[in-house]
């Protein structure tokens, strides 16, 4: 039997031998600059955000075996594999209250500060009854009950065959299970090189537990960065993959610790890697696309889950994987598929349910949302809902605990590119190829406002949880127009055109709005939430009108202007994040910019928020 020799591995720093001379040969280093001046500041009502620094991640040269074929024909029809601009996954090791978790745990129902009737739940009685209901179903479209004192629902907890996996680890929660293979010594041809920093252990010791670690992809590299380090341009570890690009990655916030970080990455080849940077161990999942061969567009750990994460593939599949499980070629499970024969757009095609008893191997669950490319998804803070956006302009709200599609919205036009939830889980916000940031309400299952201000497609949206309370929301967005826009969305203050109502809290207006859809949504949703025992298939038979929502005409939808718009880069931006002390944005070509929050003003604001949260332990 002929065995292929392991691929050549190139010593660090010597560059690639035999490089034909095209492009840079030697790995270049990241650069850090400190541009100053008013053109690098973001001026908003609360103060001025000053650019702290700009980190430029070095784009690695192509792998020698994958030297780019230079095609001079501008009309060449070769399809290049999907790639993504630099995105960051941030993690702070110290166990701290995430601002977002603080907020969504805020008991707005009893908040004296809020003059608004307690949000979505029209009758407090109902919410109470649900609260006592062990949270297995808090009513789906009716907003989640405040999570204080509630057990957070866990995906697949009803399925005993899922629990078997890791009995021994649960005894010692501090000792996390590490992946199997060492990435530095790996022979895999998937990984090209791993370049740890020479002083990595020293740097790890020096790292402030409150400091920010970041994982950032650029081209075929993934870099682990210490953003709080004075030498933050020096990567902690850089992994170069042979060919595949990491398009997305996510850090498990519930397993992080001083000696442990779980990160999963999804690749352009469909592969997924679970990587633990402290021990430099990794495991490759969906190897060579054995379960699904299309690229991974978004990957997220399931909330409060140690092992399970969800990946969206570009063929329209959502797949739950277990980091501990082996791959097995996936065959759609019969009973599920036959039950859902018509793969209609109005329901989720469950190819493998989480409740399946066959849980020895990956995938844990396999859903087909549509055949269109999924561009992004986001899991709500109540750990129950999931918003999935696709290239075909559809936005699905899925109750992933029940594996059921609740709502299907359509963009104004063009595809959706990104989605995120408000910290309290009441709203979700999308960005798309119509240049709009759209705000949607979960409880009303309706479009709340469109935000117009980008000059090109929106690439990322994020809430600033430090500037959100129960009525006001700060949203940030970045786009292909190289601009960063901030929006202030206040529930009561919407500029509405014509007769259209926005404040759906008001039952009268919400009713008129619903009547336009010739159906009272509230009764419908309540009906559904009450019939909790209906199986997914039965629920899928519910009238399509309730699930599919029409496109709202412009004349009936409030239009929101940005509070700040600024060109912050020469390249299209692709990621945006808010941290307690800064705003971070990154662009297609690896520039990461950090702005410090305004010194005063912000502190008083933050004080107010933390006070509120303190009063609600």
């Amino acid at each position, binding site marked *: 039997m002929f065995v292929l020799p392991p691929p050549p591995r190139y010593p660090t720093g010597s560059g690639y031998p035999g490089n034909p001379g095209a492009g840079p040969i030697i790995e270049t280093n990241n650069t850090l600059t400190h541009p100053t001046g008013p053109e690098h500041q973001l001026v908003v009502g609360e103060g001025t955000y000053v650019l702290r620094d700009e980190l430029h991640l070095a784009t690695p040269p192509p792998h020698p075996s994958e030297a780019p074929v230079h095609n001079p*024909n501008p009309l060449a029809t070769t399809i290049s594999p999907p790639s993504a601009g630099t995105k960051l996954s941030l993690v702070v090791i110290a166990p701290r209250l995430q601002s977002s978790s603080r907020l969504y745990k805020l008991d707005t129902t009893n908040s004296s500060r809020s003059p608004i009737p307690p949000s979505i739940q029209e009758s407090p009685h109902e919410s109470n009854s649900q609260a006592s209901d062990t949270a297995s179903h808090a009513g789906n479209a009716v907003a989640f009950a405040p999570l204080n004192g509630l057990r957070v629902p866990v995906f697949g907890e009803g399925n005993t065959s899922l629990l078997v996996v890791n009995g021994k680890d649960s005894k010692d929660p501090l000792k996390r299970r590490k992946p199997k293979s060492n990435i530095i010594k790996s022979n895999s041809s998937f990984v090209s090189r791993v370049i740890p920093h020479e002083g990595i252990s020293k740097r790890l010791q020096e790292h402030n537990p409150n400091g920010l670690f970041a994982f950032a992809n650029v081209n075929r590299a993934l870099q682990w960065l210490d953003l709080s380090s004075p030498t933050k341009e020096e990567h902690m570890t850089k992994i170069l993959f042979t060919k595949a690009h990491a398009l997305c990655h996510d850090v498990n916030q519930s397993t992080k610790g001083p000696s442990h970080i779980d990160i999963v990455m999804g690749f352009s080849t469909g592969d997924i890697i679970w990587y633990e940077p402290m021990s430099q161990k990794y495991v490759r999942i969906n190897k060579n*696309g054995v379960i699904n061969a299309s690229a991974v567009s978004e990957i997220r750990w399931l909330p409060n889950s140690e092992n399970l994460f969800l990946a969206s593939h570009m063929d329209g599949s959502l797949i739950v994987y277990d980091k501990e499980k082996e791959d097995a070629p996936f065959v759609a499970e019969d009973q599920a598929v036959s039950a859902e024969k018509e793969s209609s757009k109005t329901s989720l095609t469950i190819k493998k349910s989480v409740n399946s008893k066959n849980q020895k191997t990956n995938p844990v669950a396999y859903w087909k949302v549509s055949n269109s490319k999924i561009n992004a998804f986001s899991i709500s803070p109540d750990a129950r809902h999931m918003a999935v956006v696709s290239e075909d302009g559809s936005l699905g709200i899925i109750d992933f605990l029940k594996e059921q599609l609740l709502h299907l919205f359509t963009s104004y036009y063009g595809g959706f590119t990104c989605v995120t939830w408000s910290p309290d889980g009441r709203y979700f916000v999308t960005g798309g190829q119509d240049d709009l940031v759209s705000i949607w309400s979960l409880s009303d299952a309706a479009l709340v406002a469109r935000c117009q201000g980008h000059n090109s497609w929106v690439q990322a949206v994020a809430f600033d949880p430090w500037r959100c309370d129960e009525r006001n929301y700060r949203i940030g967005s970045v786009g292909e127009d190289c601009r960063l826009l901030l929006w202030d969305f206040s529930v009561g203050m919407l500029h509405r055109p014509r007769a259209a109502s926005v404040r759906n809290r008001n039952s009268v207006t919400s009713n008129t709005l619903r009547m336009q859809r010739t159906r009272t949504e509230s009764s419908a949703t309540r009906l559904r939430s009450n019939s909790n025992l209906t199986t997914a298939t039965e629920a899928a038979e519910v009238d399509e009108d309730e699930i599919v929502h029409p496109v709202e005409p412009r004349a009936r939808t409030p239009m929101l202007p940005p509070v700040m718009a600024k060109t912050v880069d020469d390249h299209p931006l692709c990621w945006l994040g808010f941290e307690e002390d800064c705003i971070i944005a990154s662009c297609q070509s690896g520039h990461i910019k950090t702005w410090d929050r305004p010194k005063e003003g912000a502190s008083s604001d933050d004080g107010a928020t933390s006070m509120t949260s303190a009063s609600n332990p």
Partner: protein
Amino acid sequence: MSSFFGRFKPGTGPASPASKDVPAKKDPNALQPTPLEKLLADAGPIREDGSDKFFGFENFGSTCYCNSIIQCLYYSVPFREQVISFPSRSPPEALERPANAPLPRLNTDTGSPPLANGQNSALSPKGRNSISSPVAAPRKSTSTPGALGAPPGTKPEDNKDSPEYKKKQAIAAGPVLTMDYENSHAYGMSESLFTAMKDIFEAVIVNKSRIGVVSPHKFLEILRRENEMFRTPMHQDAHEFLNLLLNEVVENVEQFSKHRITENGHAEPNGLATTSGAVVPQHSLQSNSTGWVHELFEGTLTSETRCLTCENTSQRDEAFLDLSVDLEQHTSVTSCLRKFSEEEMLCERNKFHCDNCGGLQEAEKRMKVKRLPKILALHLKRFKYTEDLQRLQKLFHRVVYPYYLRLFNTTDDAEDPDRLYELYAVVVHIGGGPYHGHYVSIIKTQDRGWLLFDDEMVEPVDKAYVRNFFGGENVLACAYVLFYQETTLEAMQKEQEAEEEAAAKKATVVPQEGVPASPIHKQNGNTNGHPLQTATTPSVEQEDHFASLNHAATAPPVPHSDHTALEHMVTSIPMLNSRKSNLQSLSKQEKADKVREEKERKAAEKELEKQAKQKRKEMEQKRRENYRKQEEDLRAALELSRASVVEDEKKRKVNPLTATLGESPDALPQLHVHKEKEKENGFTKGGLSRFRHTSMSLRGKPKFWPGNHKDKSEKAGVDESAVLQEGPHTPGEQMDGGTPAGTPDKGEKEKEKGKNRFSLGRKKSTFHL
């Protein structure tokens, strides 16, 4: 040679070892269907509406502007239907060319006046309906030596994927429809661009083959006869041509119906069977309405001007056939359209003549869409006059365009302001500047997905391919004209579902081979998908290639050399070894064949090399010539614009007020001066001829409307042009309009008044002087 035409015959397979001559060894390759043929393999019977015909268009030296636009119009379904059914008569199948009518054969290549040709009989309907390769073949055989369309230095086998090679293949495969006849009499119309286009459409639809090549001789002849600016072999502006064509069609159609009414006196629209003597189809009522071009392409813009002195707002409606939008770096089409309708200050040199105050006042102006067209043609103004260089420059800005679109810039009272449009055609300009380059179009067909139409070549492409032409630094190929058509949400969803299903199907089949057993994935194409990497600065080699591309595509000198080179190429291209090993089983006999073939191949290669050398020399020569010519043109253009600047400044000094304001009465003589200047410089031809035409988008762009607005708006429509003539008048501004046009010739202007009244471009009221 015979193997080419027999390439579709199933009999001549690679299995037959009787390869006695050189071409025979090509069979394994020749038998490989083109991607388009593969796509059409399972097609059923040919539909009668022409929606499943995929014909390339022959390029007669820089006529790609025409090819790309006609393709777009052909696949504009309602447009094609109207062209076919107007004027109403029998369906195209029944139309045989009147046997007795002598048909002049016209030679467009030389641009000489039409002359009767004895070959008429050969071009009889029979010849036209059958595979007309005999027409194509003789021309090929009068070939020049083995010209390879490839840049020197590349190996012939690399060429296999080159567009040049594919184009030759397409011509060789045929059928070639030589459109050098006209049927206008049968339509009861006089010869015009419309009838020539109709001839083309009908010939394509009637032809038994699904694929082929159209040689639009007649069409080009008429175009060149009637429009001086298209007479030169220079690179032309595709948008300009679209505009001209649409206006021409409007005019032809209107003229015809007027004529008919006066002729028949009492004639009702549907009582017109007289002209063709055929049965009037049922849908004649609709198709006989002459306004169908308007109905499809025309929208209405309302321009609101608020005088800042008296605060009076005046409104004016203007019709448009397409919208010309300014571009900015890193924007979207949505944003460009919004910018188009942004408020604009009319101040300083650009004041507004207010009727109310009676004088030039500062004013605010905005233009919004009041009536949305069924087909929205969007012209991205990629050619912009730059002050520093004093000439047009191509803007490579990255401008993204979505597959679906709605317009934000509608008036409040617009009907259906949320109308959904879908992208169905993109005209792409490839090249570094406005004076040279190549046009292709990418078009969504009814049920065959997106296709790339590059002159003779038609190739299926992925839907995502459409997004390759957003533009950007060092991206030579960028979208130039976008065609959006009205659609509904339901249609969109239905289509998306179908599309996705097809894609899913494909995905389930393809990955099997796409995922090899080895851990390294073999994927096609570019391995580093990172944008930075792909956007490398063009190397010398690239430029070199581009020069040849330019040459092959649009350079005029030897019109047919490209096609004639075919044989040499085909017969002598060495096969890729890997392919060979795939295709041939290793039986002994075949091995022997292989050896022999190898020998032959080598001999052929040598021969080829020789020829290639020769050719390369020639090409080099040509390219140099070409380059020199372009340089000259450029210099001339430069000189001219400099001269005009001087002239302009003089003017301004003489009459500061009017000159700065650019008011029309003074401007006309001034424009005239330009022309005289041209003549003085001796540049009446070539690159300068384009400058005699004002940009249509600009001409259609009213900025001042001295006099009574209400009056004018009432007349909006036919007489609009009179108003619209008062476009900008400084050269800088004209250039700013975005089309490579400059100073209008007065005479031409007069003549075209009626034609080019509809294209509206938004131009910021800034001066570039």
